[in-house]
């Protein structure tokens, strides 16, 4: 009983003392604090870690160039883990703003966490620059404190694709499959509308829950509807499972198009193996994109952290550059001053030009540049728009059995 007594005294003590300590950040030298909220544990941690690394890499480069010094004060990044949970994201946002007194917030990976952080930032009147969260309504809610530069709204990933669709692919019968997440359903909605406008028939339309072992029942069903093009919005590994099982089912179409995310990542190629060949996808970014610094970022990251970054990392890297640029230009480091500076941003990053504009009901949303990419000989090549293409597209793709 005695030891138990001490254990609970310890626990309660920890609990009471804990909160006090948690809030009081060490008072160091004067810095300009920027809060970054990312999932560093939990099932999204892989991307959270990649984005954190990219932030730090950009920060070091900027520091070397003397750009992290804002009117005599250094920029300081404070990372907080949201565990992929929205309550925690809200707590992190409140802590950063109220306890750590950050001048602005950044981060936001999952749509749900990004929404909650954005809502908190809006009600606290603190600028929030989104890195990844792509749900449409985040920048469609009229929130003047919320800015999205490096991430496109989910429904706008397909800009370049439709150009290519009209000029090259000319689909007749499209099959649409998507994960039932915010990103998946938003993309699917936009895709459906675009098909309707162009009179393209959707012959198969189904959502699935991510993490399935076996997509064959759905794919076999799809096969019967005989589509000529498949549009699929999938998370990384689901994407690999889907194309592998298409191959196993000998499901042949003229082209499989991924709706971004999963279909462009190195892990996709690694897991799907040769089934990934010729798979096409929309993308916001590829290492060999034309924007200055993109290739260097990719190589440097790979060297430094031993793995290949994807567009999530690039988003974080570019965001860090935007932050340094904005804080450098801000008249004063009040929320209002930073908001003004954000609004006036005109910067070319490795994600392309960033300019926060109001359009089509969006606010403070940079217009995304999108690409169509294709896996060719195990490499991801830009195939559209043609003026920036790194390789010529293959269309229609060979049937599974005709491949070596």
């Amino acid at each position, binding site marked *: 009983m005695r030891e138990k007594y001490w254990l609970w005294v310890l626990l309660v003590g920890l609990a009471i003392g804990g909160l006090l300590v948690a809030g009081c950040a060490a008072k160091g030298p004067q810095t300009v604090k920027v809060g970054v909220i990312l999932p560093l544990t939990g099932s999204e941690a892989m991307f959270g870690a990649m984005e954190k690394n990219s932030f730090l890499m950009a920060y070091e480069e900027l520091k070397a160039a003397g750009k992290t010094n804002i009117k005599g004060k250094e920029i300081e990044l404070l990372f907080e883990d949201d565990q992929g949970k929205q309550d925690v994201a809200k707590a992190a946002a409140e802590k950063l703003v109220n306890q750590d007194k950050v001048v602005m917030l950044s981060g936001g990976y999952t749509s749900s966490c990004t929404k909650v952080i954005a809502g908190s930032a809006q009600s606290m009147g603190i600028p929030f620059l989104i890195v990844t969260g792509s749900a449409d309504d985040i920048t469609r809610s009229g929130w003047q404190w919320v800015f999205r530069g490096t991430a496109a709204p989910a429904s706008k990933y397909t800009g370049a694709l439709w150009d290519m669709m009209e000029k090259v692919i000319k689909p007749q019968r499209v099959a649409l499959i998507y994960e039932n997440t915010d990103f998946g359903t938003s993309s699917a909605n936009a895709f459906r509308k675009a098909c309707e406008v162009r009179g393209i028939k959707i012959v198969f339309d189904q959502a699935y829950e991510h993490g399935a072992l*076996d997509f064959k029942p759905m794919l*076999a069903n799809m096969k019967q509807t005989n589509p000529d093009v498949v549009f699929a919005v999938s998370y990384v590994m689901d994407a690999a499972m889907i194309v592998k099982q298409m191959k196993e089912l000998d499901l042949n179409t003229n082209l499989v198009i991924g709706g971004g995310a999963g279909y462009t990542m190195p892990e996709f190629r690694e897991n799907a193996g040769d089934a990934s060949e010729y798979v096409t996808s929309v993308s916001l970014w590829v290492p060999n994109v034309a924007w200055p610094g993109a290739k260097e970022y990719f190589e440097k990251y790979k060297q430094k952290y031993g793995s290949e970054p994807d567009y999530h990392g690039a988003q974080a890297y570019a965001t860090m550059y935007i932050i340094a640029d904005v804080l450098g230009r801000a008249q004063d480091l009040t929320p209002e001053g930073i908001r003004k500076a954000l609004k006036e941003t005109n910067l070319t990053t490795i994600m392309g030009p960033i300019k926060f504009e109001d359009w089509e009901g969006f606010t403070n949303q940079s217009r995304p540049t999108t690409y169509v990419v294709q896996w060719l000989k195990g490499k991801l090549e830009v195939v559209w728009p043609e003026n920036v293409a790194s390789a010529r597209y293959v269309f229609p793709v060979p049937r599974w059995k005709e491949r070596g």
Partner: protein
Amino acid sequence: MALLGQTVICGLLLGGMYALIAIGMTLIMGVMKIINLAHGSLVMVGMYVTYVCYRAWGLDPYLGMLVAMPVLFLLGCVIQHFLINRLLEVESVLPENQVLLTVGISLVLTEVIRFIFKSDYRSIATPYTGEALLVGGMSISIAMAVGFVIAMVFTYLLHLFLTRTDLGRAIRATAQDREAAQYMGVDARRVTVITFGLGSALAAAGGSLLLPLFYLWPDIGHLFTAKAFIITILGGMGSTTGALLGGLTLGVAESLGATYIGMGYKDVVGLVIFLLVLLFLPHGLRSLVRR
């Protein structure tokens, strides 16, 4: 017709995999009568062991399994001996606090693995990955078929072990009536330790069979825990044949649901069957066969 055939085949093969994972759980639940929410995490750890064997020594996952199983057997024994058995001995209002302990164990296992391997998605490419036989317009994945056969073999071996050996009989006796078994000289503590080890080893085997087909990251365990429960209840706690039957049923039900209702609802189909069985067949699907 080909669609129905394809659906059923997919379901059966998948069900075989599910069954192997669930057999581990049914053993544990049968003997300990506890809900083990760490089961999926054990599967996950098993998969990482097999993965390491593949990366480090190029060991095929079907051989790596033979390394993963003993490792997980030990891990299971340790968990049972030092954690769960300890808790069984203390007086508590709700026996369900064991469940919470397994939640804690699951968190710890997941985070330790995340520390070592990070959250990256990992997968291995064997020569047979992505290969399939096409029979009459129906595709049969090689890795799944092999996995299915191995799962069946394991189930059969386990069945022999439980019915033919003294230790196996002791396990079954403990599952049926712990106190009675103790009167008859069974060391129930030891039996529970071995059972948990065995259950963990089988979980590792199930995970290893999935490795060539699937992929791996630290949170993969959650996918399996729920499935294993459903199957355990479908089959009746503690029954190996029941688990096999339950696994196949769940696999086919999910496949049919995915084909004819929609991929998003496939898990609902499984859960509804689960509820119905729970309510109307208290001893699981096995009781249908017995009758």
